[in-house]
């Protein structure tokens, strides 16, 4: 999947799952703040990315993915 297409798809599935508008998501936006994730719901995003894109985010990696740009890069570089 091309990166622009991937970004569009990631934004779409995150917006639907976490009940926000796609327009609320910006590359520099903080993921936890934008998606209103707490310590229990962060795993929902990890599971969603794996189920939709086949990309596993390990526990040690998730803390390094702070904003959406980092998430796009991670999924793009690890997609099969």
């Amino acid at each position: 999947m091309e990166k622009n297409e991937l970004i569009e798809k990631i934004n779409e599935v995150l917006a639907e799952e976490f009940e926000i508008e796609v327009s609320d998501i910006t590359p520099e936006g903080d993921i936890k703040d934008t998606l209103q994730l707490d310590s229990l719901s962060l795993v929902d995003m990890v599971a969603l990315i794996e189920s939709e894109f086949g990309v596993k985010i390990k526990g040690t990696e998730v803390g390094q993915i702070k904003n959406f740009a980092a998430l796009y890069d991670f999924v793009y570089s690890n997609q099969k």
Partner: protein
Amino acid sequence: MPNQPLLTGEAIYRLIPQRPPIVMVDTFFSADETDAETGLHIHADNIFCQADTLQEPGLIEHVAQSAAAFAGYAPYTRGEAPKLGFIGEVKKFKIVRLPHCGEFLHTHLHVMGEAGGVTLIAAEVQVEGETLATCQMKIFIQEGE
């Protein structure tokens, strides 16, 4: 279904902290990094049974203890005590029908993701291949003392 369970009966106590009469897993079939299978014979004296039927709390408790046994199996193979775990959330719990006394629950668990010490598990409870219930459960495993 795997032919030979890894653990049955009181051997399950090595994986979970519960003791009779509230033990809701009596068979541990298999486990790897992402999946596990457990089972439970529903006896008429099960404390969650009413009118010959296992009630909803019994199903939830079975899934929770199955997840606990899954989490406890890896430490068990290393000769360590099971770690204390907590249910953070139960969601998308769907019951097709409640099982009856005399039936055997066969439950498949799959790790959907892990983050921040929380593991999201999907569970499917079957009786002879018939799906009775599905749910997702978040488990927090306490590391250390």
